[in-house]
């Protein structure tokens, strides 16, 4: 059996940044396994700009952003295998992979970094009634057809869901000559970034209809049209608000799901809200030595944060291995009682969900999303009963990730700290 210190599952932005960071932190035995025919993951089809503002202080396209990390990985001499599907990860970190040349084979790793990304929610998950013709695509599939394969899915488009990929595709299809008739969003607010609403819809006069959904699909073979209806407070369609819109294409941008089939099969404990693994301050899952980062952990809004998070996972994987090898095992001994993060009152979840103060760095960024639009509200953090952070934000929306920074010294000041609560407060 082959042996590597670290096996990284996925060669997208998370996997690349994790591998590069692991190498920079002193690990020389790293292997990236990528199922596609090139490194870079979904960034390769994101040919629009807006990537890298935080990381590189400049605006890059997706492929350009990916390329910086691909170059780094190559310069660092990190091994990678393309066209390789990981079939299984065992609890004791044996990775089973498959490709055309090697067939089915196993690799023994000391640490594994999960970076498999996410997939789009399909039509079926929404149970939209109607026919099942050609012409219905998840936004990312349409993006790939246009940007990678060079084919147009259709010319008269309705987009359901205002997630970022849907917004980006509204602009992209318009630029390719299609008519995007409407973007419909079930919720009273968009799930995408504000800047995408402005740059992709407003700038092209594409209407965004909030509180609307598709209630019927017409066309037996190729899509002919859809019926749009307004929805009430309860999220249910309101009678007599139905409107038929002819179109040959329906794009769905109705959410992303972390792709955790391998994690589930491995027995890793999952977080129901994020659909990603539950991780601690080291981004380590419930199985020690298996780390997670990027969209497989929780769906991010900006790739910059993916890279940052992944770098931390890579660094911690190296720490884990050196602790094992210097005999500081079992790493869970001489540990302080874990501190649990509680997401409540407007906060949907936090990553991480657990902190071991002895293992955290000087400071730790905790990321979360809010469940609604909040104006002139406060992000509040309580250490047990005491409020320690109270930061005003003009606007917070579910489409944008929020973060707080915790200082280790501050945590240490609280003896027997059990719970850190993160919530949104009006005042």
């Amino acid at each position, binding site marked *: 059996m082959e042996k590597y210190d670290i096996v990284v599952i996925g060669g997208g932005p998370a996997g690349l940044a994790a591998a590069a960071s692991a190498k920079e932190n002193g690990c020389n035995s790293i292997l990236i396994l990528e*199922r596609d025919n090139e490194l870079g993951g979904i960034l390769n089809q994101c040919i629009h700009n807006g990537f890298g503002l935080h990381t590189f202080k400049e605006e890059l396209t997706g492929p350009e952003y990916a390329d910086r990390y691909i170059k780094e990985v190559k310069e660092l001499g990190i091994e990678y295998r393309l*066209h390789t*599907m990981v*079939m299984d990860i065992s609890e004791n970190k044996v990775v089973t992979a*498959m*490709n*055309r*040349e*090697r*067939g*089915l084979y196993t690799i023994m790793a000391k640490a594994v970094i999960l970076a498999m990304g996410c*997939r*789009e929610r*399909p*039509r*079926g*998950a929404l*149970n939209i*009634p*109607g*026919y*099942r*013709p*050609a*012409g219905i*695509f*998840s936004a*990312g*599939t349409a993006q*790939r*057809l*246009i940007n*990678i*394969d*060079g*084919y*147009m*899915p*259709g*010319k008269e488009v309705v987009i359901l869901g205002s997630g970022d990929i849907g917004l980006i595709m509204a602009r992209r299809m318009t630029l*390719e*000559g*299609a008519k995007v008739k409407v973007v419909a969003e079930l919720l009273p607010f968009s799930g995408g970034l504000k800047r995408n609403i402005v740059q992709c819809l407003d700038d092209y006069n594409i209407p965004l209809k909030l509180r609307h959904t598709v*209630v*019927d*699909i017409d066309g*037996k*073979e*190729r899509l002919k049209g859809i019926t749009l209806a307004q929805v009430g407070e309860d999220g249910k*369609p309101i009678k007599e608000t139905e409107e038929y819109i002819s179109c*040959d294409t329906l794009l769905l941008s109705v959410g992303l799901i972390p792709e955790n*089939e391998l994690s*589930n099969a491995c027995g890793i404990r999952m977080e129901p809200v994020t659909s990603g693994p539950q991780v601690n301050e080291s981004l380590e899952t419930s199985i020690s030595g298996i780390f997670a980062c990027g969209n497989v952990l929780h769906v991010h809004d900006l790739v910059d944060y993916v890279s940052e998070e992944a770098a931390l996972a890579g660094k911690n994987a190296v720490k884990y291995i050196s602790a094992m090898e210097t005999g500081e095992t079992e790493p869970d001994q001489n540990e302080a009682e874990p501190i649990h993060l509680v997401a409540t009152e407007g906060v949907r979840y936090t990553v991480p969900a657990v902190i071991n103060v002895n293992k955290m760095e000087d400071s730790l960024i905790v990321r979360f999303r809010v469940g609604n639009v909040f104006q002139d509200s406060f992000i509040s953090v309580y250490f047990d009963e005491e409020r320690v952070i109270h930061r005003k934000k003009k606007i917070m929306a579910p489409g944008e990730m929020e973060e707080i920074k915790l200082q280790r010294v501050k945590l240490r000041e609280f003896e027997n700290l059990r719970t850190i609560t993160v919530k949104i407060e009006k005042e």
Partner: protein
Amino acid sequence: MYDVIIIGAGVTGCSIAREISKYKVNACVIEKEEDVCCGTSKANSAIMHAGFDAEEGSLMARLNVRGNEMIETLSSDLDIPFIRNGSLVVCTNEEDLPKLQDLYQRGIANGVRDLAVLNREESVRLEPNLSDQVVGSLYAPTAGIICPFTMTFAFAEIASQNGIAFKFNTTVEDIQKSNGCYEVKTNHGILGSKYVVNAAGVYADVFHNMVSSKKMKITARRGEYCLLDKSAGSHVSKTIFALPGKYGKGVLVAPTVHGNLIIGPTAADIEDKEGTNTTKEGLGELLQKAGNTVKDLPLRQTITSFAGLRAHEDHHEFIIREVEDSAGFIDAAGMESPGLTSAPAVGEMVVGIIKNTFQMETKTDYIAVRKGIVHAAELTVEERNELIKMQPEYGNIICRCEMISEGEILDAIHRPLGAKSLDGVKRRVRAGAGRCQAGFCTPKTMEILSRELHIPMEDIVKSGMEANVVIGKNRAVK
């Protein structure tokens, strides 16, 4: 000039085609779609019924029990995924308990083996997720679940390999009798035949009525279904029926042979014979009714919903006979549930009818056994590596949800009557049938179809002549 023309390449037509291909006969199957298994056969409960539902002495009862017996051998000879998982008809009301006894008695009379009436404790022991309202059940161990696609493809492939012609995208426009033979007028010209078998599903009345003064009426009875992710597939292990009502067997909850969970069908009579759309009302009703028999259904795991049309004849009975006033025209009509289960027996019966008036010699070189598409994920590591060594495409995963390799897709395309469309690939090997519903594999499968069949990407269809996936290269839009 054909000896036999079969109209319809659904499971009934293909079963008849397979049966008749055992004989030296010049026969063809006419199908209006581009593939076999495009109508009722592709959208049903995928159940092998035990046979206690149909009225004693009816053709339905006889062919159901016979079909259920035959499927055991057929599934192994033809490599059809089939599991005899058993079924429970559950009763949720003390007052209705006698109806379970009635069903039991009917089953005995129909010749169904091993039936048992169970009380609540016994039922829940077999199936822990039965709803709290369940007071008893009828257990039928001989019931099973099957892949209706593979069943149809297997029949068709065997028929094709044994010399039966298949004509796709061919619509029958008229049927005339002249000089003791039938002239079947199609969009591709007139085909002559001594015998015509009408296995046209919801359209069977249209063709029957072309040749007979005794009119038939087939109503499309729509059934809507939800299919749940494999993570929900073990919620029940047996097929769970509610006690039958006026519109058939009611909503069932069952595992599929592929490990998903299926819930359905509803029953609504509709005018449109192509009305395979789901409805808000139907899906709502489905989810509500399924909860009556099974508790804690993980409905959030729904990956798709769909509707199929049962070919319901007014008398709720199969019509399998030579048309009285049109010798040589044989109906295989009214093939609603248990039509899938009965299909093998219908094949036997129809060929038996033809043999009454037509001498056919048995073939000595009949190909009886079919090797299905290898499902690489089910092989041992050694077997799989052997396969990949011989054909590296088996090492290249295209559909990551169902873990389907390029090798399997190539087999689906190149075997007899191979796949020509995305849905054709999906029904043969399940690429695109998983939880992402073809989000990732659509472009890849299109490329493979385009490359292998030498057709441009623009001409790749989902299912049906007009169902193009893309409209052209970028900037093709005016």
